[in-house]
C-alpha cells in the first residue's frame, strides 16, 4: 500500500452499461478504486446506458445484489473528481444532473474524442 508511483498514468474508464444487467459496471468501479489507491489520475465517463449507473435512489436489495451505487459517493475521498456524463445519452434517457448521485460534468460526444486521446489508457466497461 505504501508503494508510490513516481509517474501517475492518466486512465479513463468508459462506462457504457446499465448497472445490474451485467457485472461490468461493478468491475469497473472496483478497478477505479484500485487504480486510484495507487495514485493514478482517473477520469470517469458515462455513456449510453452507463449514465443509469449514477441514478439516485437505486435499491437492488430485492434482486439480491449489492448496492454498489453507494460507492460512487466515496470517489471524492479516493481523489476521483473528474466525472463526465455524455449529453445526448442523458437527454435520450430523460436524465438530468440533479437526478445523479454525484456531481458530474456534461460533455458532448464531439469533445469526448479529444479527452480520450489525451489519456495514457482507456478502459471500456
Amino acid at each position, binding site marked *: 500500500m505504501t508503494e508510490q508511483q513516481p509517474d501517475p498514468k492518466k486512465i479513463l474508464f*468508459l462506462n*457504457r452499461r446499465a448497472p445490474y444487467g451485467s457485472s461490468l459496471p461493478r468491475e469497473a468501479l472496483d478497478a477505479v478504486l484500485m487504480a486510484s489507491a495507487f495514485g493514478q489520475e482517473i477520469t470517469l465517463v458515462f*455513456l*449510453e446506458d452507463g449514465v443509469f449507473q449514477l441514478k439516485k435512489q437505486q435499491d437492488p436489495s430485492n434482486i439480491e445484489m449489492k448496492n454498489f451505487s453507494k460507492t460512487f459517493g466515496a470517489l471524492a475521498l479516493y481523489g476521483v473528481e473528474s466525472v463526465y456524463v455524455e449529453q445526448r445519452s442523458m437527454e435520450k434517457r430523460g436524465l438530468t444532473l440533479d437526478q445523479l448521485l454525484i456531481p458530474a460534468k456534461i460533455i458532448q*460526444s*464531439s469533445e*469526448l*474524442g*479529444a479527452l*480520450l*486521446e489525451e*489519456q*495514457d*489508457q*482507456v478502459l*471500456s466497461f
Partner: protein
Amino acid sequence: MILHTVNRSPFGSDCLQSCLDIATIDSGVILIEDGVYCALANTELTELISTALTRHKIYVLSPDLQARGIADAVAEGIEAVDYAGFVELCTQFDKVVSWY
C-alpha cells in the same frame, strides 16, 4: 492516436454509432467478430460508413468475414486484414479502445 475496435453488429447495438461519434479524425476503426456486419455493402448504414471513411481508415478482420459468409459483400473503401495485420495495426496506434 487511437485504434477503435468494434465487435457488435450495428443492427442491435450502439457500438458503431458511439464509436464514430467520438473517434477523432484520422483515428482508425477495426471491425471484428460480429462487428464485421458493419462492413456490409448495401445496408441502411451505407451513408454512415461512407461519411466515416472520409474521416477514418476502416479495417475489417477477414477471418471473421469469412466465417459469416460475407467476405464478398464488403463496402468499398474498407480494408480487410488478417490476424497479423490486426496485430500490426495495434502496434501502429498508441492505444486501443474497445467498443463491445
